[in-house]
């Protein structure tokens, strides 16, 4: 066998190994993103379970916010039944976050409610879930960022285009989330 053939074979071999490793890491990143999204889903379901609890606890006190409760209950129904795209799910949950945030803010006007044990417990539980939800979102965003970077940078984008890896959208921080961070600092 002559030398040039060996060199060509070696180069092809290296190229193959590189392609495989890039492909595998892309699959790995995509699965991490999927997994992270599934985690968000788990947290969202926990939050759905909390909504009736929240509505029942505050309903008696907050007579003026009746419409908000109805809308929240309706959104929850939709969210539970929804088996469509991730984007629609994200959108629906952003609305839910908004409404829940509004309710928690309006509570300020009802001192009796604010002091009740039931509500205090609920407030803690909601804060807990929101914190876990935020952690899942951040995990998802990190995984997606890594995937996106890999699908867009040279030379791994060649492999990504070849096997049709697409960039995924990031979660934007919701209005309530942004507000909460400001308060915490």
């Amino acid at each position, binding site marked *: 066998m002559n030398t040039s053939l060996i060199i060509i074979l070696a180069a092809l071999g290296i190229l193959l190994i590189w392609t495989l490793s890039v492909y595998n890491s892309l699959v790995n990143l995509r699965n991490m993103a999927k997994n992270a999204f599934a*985690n968000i889903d788990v947290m969202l379901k926990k939050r759905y379970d909390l909504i009736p609890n929240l509505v029942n606890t505050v309903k008696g006190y907050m007579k003026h916010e009746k419409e908000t409760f109805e809308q929240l209950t309706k959104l929850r129904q939709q969210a539970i039944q929804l088996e469509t795209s991730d984007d629609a799910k994200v959108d629906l949950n952003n609305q839910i976050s908004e409404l829940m945030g509004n309710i928690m803010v309006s509570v300020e006007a009802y001192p009796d409610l604010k002091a009740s044990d039931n509500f205090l417990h609920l407030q*803690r539980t909601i804060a*807990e879930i929101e*914190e876990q939800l935020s*952690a899942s979102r951040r*995990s998802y965003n990190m995984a997606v960022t890594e995937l996106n970077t890999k699908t867009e940078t040279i030379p791994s984008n060649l492999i990504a285009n070849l096997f049709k890896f697409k960039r995924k959208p990031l979660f934007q921080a919701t209005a309530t989330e942004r507000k909460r*961070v400001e308060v915490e*600092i």
Partner: protein
Amino acid sequence: MRSTEAFKAFYESELKKELIALDEVRKRYMKFNSLFLLGFFLAVAIVVWVKYQFQPRAEIIIGLVLAFAVALIIVGVYVYKETKDLNYKQDFKNRIIKSIVHFISEDLMYKANQKISPSNFKKSRLFLSSIDRYRGDDYVAGKIDQTAIQFSELHVQYKTTSNNSKGQRQTRWHTVFKGLFFQADFNKDFEGSTVLLPNYLGKKFTFFKKIAGATRKEKYVKLEDTTFNENFNCYSTDDIKARYILSPALMQRINSFKDNYPKNPVSISFVDGAIYVAISYSKDLFEPTYFSSLVKRNMMLSYFEDIKLVVDIVEELNLNTRIWSKE
């Protein structure tokens, strides 16, 4: 929490007179000890002088050494008897350091000779090497508002034995950790472990950071805060839990806490609902001086600040904010 200014006033009104009294003890202690040391060096000098000046027979030298040895033992016993009631170091810790701790917070208790337990040290998962020698003192424990804390000075070592060129066994001691070790109840409930180790590699070299954690059960986690990533390498058993613990606000707080220690490596871990902070110091902490006066405001101020910075972890990391499900 008490300020530096308040401490200066406290020093003038309370601490100073205690220190002056204690400094008398130090002088007495050093007088007797220097008497012994002086005797020892004088004896050695005489033996050496006699040996080279007169070059006597070996028996005479041996006799001389024995005579001096007996004399030194007698002096030693005398010095020991005179100074054993002085307990200079113990007195310093139990009077001075204790009152500094109480000045910082009345709710804290101080035990000069106790330390953080080895099981707590191991539980932190900060240092995974074996432990052959575990020493420590200056134990402080108590509650700051709702958060239970404890910390102490620790010096943890492991040993290696090897044979040198002459075939003799040699034991070497290596430091695992030396400095202040802090533990507190964390305000969120969680399982598993998240470890923050000092980052010496800067922003890049993610590959090496992953390799560095290969022996751990925790995996490398890249977080969103770039300053934080420059300060620490995060390893966790679960990346979502790591983010649940390390909220963006907490990462900022940890960054500014770390700025308090520009020279000392700081490691932090979160294990099963507790936070552990290890701050490395090369010197021994909270010790009295022996060869110079004890009445020094700046020295006391630095002891005060060393303790206060650690106690302040609770406030600085907001551990009293109990808005999550953990009560």
